[in-house]
């Protein structure tokens, strides 16, 4: 009956077919109802992951603090986990982590921001199309490669200028980490700046402002929270970075301000202690979780901070 060409009868069929299909449609409606439930289960995996991380870290951290007083851990400047008279002060690790991250930020913040300005305000789309993927490529280089590079190239190079620099030191991985987070800062800041409405730029350049003035007086103030958020996220990334410092900064648990010395970060400590596969039950083993918990809380605070800052900025216009 369908192939009889197009008569008005056929036309009616469409409506009727549709109506008919709609009537006998309980399965589809059930599927329609089930899908959000199913998807919400999938979505809950990400929440479960967080719970898993916190539970894993917390249960063993509690065990650790049964053996080592809380205060000793957070105020101790000596970390000798494997010694006959072990001491578990986390401050040397915090020092290493903070120092390397600050060095990284000192490199990445100005360069990243300037690169972002260039890309968002000055570069032609053609240039942007080339430079952005290259920056992304830099972000995509595995950190182990940076580590190798810091250890076998940057450190020897730096020693030409700073003879007192140790073969493993916190300076070189800090600098290289800085380069590693340039793309992140550049790209997030660029996002913040390019989300400043063009109308705002037109308003300013319509009054005869140069690009620099438009950027400095309108774009950057408007994007400031986004830019700051990118810095915070950059630091957070540096804090969590592992392989570069593990390879290039050694495992000396120095509590010092001397960046030419070897220092150990929290992440590098974790790698050292697991040493391929950690054995359960010892205080050293539990210290691993206490340090990881500290690291986790540290980065969590940073991330929440970044989020809070950038949220403020989204409400602007």
């Amino acid at each position, binding site marked *: 009956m369908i192939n009889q060409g*197009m008569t008005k009868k056929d036309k009616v069929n*469409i409506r009727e*077919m*549709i109506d008919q299909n709609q009537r006998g449609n309980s399965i589809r409606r059930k599927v329609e109802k089930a899908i959000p439930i199913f998807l919400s289960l999938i979505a809950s995996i990400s929440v479960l992951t967080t719970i898993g991380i916190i539970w894993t870290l917390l249960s063993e951290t509690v065990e650790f603090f049964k053996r080592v007083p809380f205060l000793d851990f957070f105020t101790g400047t000596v970390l000798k986990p494997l010694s006959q008279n072990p001491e578990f002060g986390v401050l040397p690790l915090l020092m290493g982590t903070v120092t390397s991250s600050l060095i990284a930020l000192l490199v990445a913040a100005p360069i990243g921001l300037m690169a972002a300005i260039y890309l968002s305000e000055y570069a032609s789309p053609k240039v942007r199309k080339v430079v952005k993927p290259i920056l992304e490529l830099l972000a995509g280089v595995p950190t182990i490669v940076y580590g190798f590079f810091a250890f076998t190239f940057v450190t020897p190079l730096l020693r030409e200028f700073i003879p007192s620099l140790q073969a493993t030191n916190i300076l070189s991985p800090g600098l290289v980490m800085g380069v590693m987070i340039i793309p992140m800062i550049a790209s997030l800041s660029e996002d913040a700046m390019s989300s400043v409405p063009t109308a705002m730029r037109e308003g300013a350049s319509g009054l005869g402002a140069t690009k620099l003035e438009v950027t400095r007086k309108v774009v950057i103030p408007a994007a400031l929270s986004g830019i700051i958020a990118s810095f915070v996220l950059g630091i957070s990334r540096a804090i969590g970075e592992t392989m570069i410092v593990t390879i290039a900064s050694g495992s000396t648990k120095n509590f010092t301000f001397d960046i030419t010395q070897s220092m150990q970060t929290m992440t590098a400590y974790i790698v050292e202690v697991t040493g391929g596969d950690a054995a359960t039950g010892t205080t050293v083993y539990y210290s691993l979780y206490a340090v990881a918990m500290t690291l986790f809380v540290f980065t969590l605070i940073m991330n929440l901070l970044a989020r809070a800052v950038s949220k403020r900025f989204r409400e602007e216009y």
Partner: protein
Amino acid sequence: MTLLHERRKEKTLSVVRNENWVKPIYETNGLNLWYGTSHALKNIELDINEREVTAIIGPSGCGKSTFLKTLNRMVETATDVTISGNVTFKGNNILGNAMPVEILRSKVGMVFQKPNPFPKSIYENIAFGPRVHGIRNKATLDMIVEESLKKSALWDEVKDRLHKSAYGLSGGQQQRLCIARCLAIDPEVILMDEPTSALDPVSTHKIEELIHDIKNDVTIAIVTHNMQQAARISDRTAFFLNGEVIEEDRTTTIFNTPSDKLTDDYINGRFG
């Protein structure tokens, strides 16, 4: 046209107003709508008559689109929308849960300001609606595609590239494709939201002709910012301002002897 007959057969239960033989397919009573706390529609009392073209005019932001989208409940896709009042479609309240929106929308097509074909082939665009409603048979689909394209006067222009992307069409062709896509599910009403405002004069003219051609089969409600267009194509016109219907009447009356000063001002371009 059996369907037509059927529609005619339905007893005119609702009150016949203004003219004889014309009965409203949509009736709106005390319709209020809020986006969050902003009151976008205020106490609307407006009917849409069957097999007429109703034009809705008014300045930007007055609630024209909102009202139109209430008629197929598309407005609910926005977040935090509160609706009160009654809207009946063929006597059934559509605002409750009595009728699933999918069924309502299969009877009420919609055409938007910006042509919005799917990023698929022309054929797939037209076949989308029927497929969604469970029509799988290839021959039937072929037939529906051809028929809909013919009705929307697009068949000759595209019959050789049915399986090419719809994005290769011009803006005007895309808009006619969107109308064809509606026609493919044989709706009783088509809602059009400024369907020609992004189009060139020639395309506009074609769409107006198309509206004229299909208005005997389908009820049309059209939002337009072009008053002359409203005057040319509609039977009745409603003038919205600030979420209220200021005036609603036969198009000739609205344009020649509006009873409200605001309507007069708007039609004569003193604002908007």
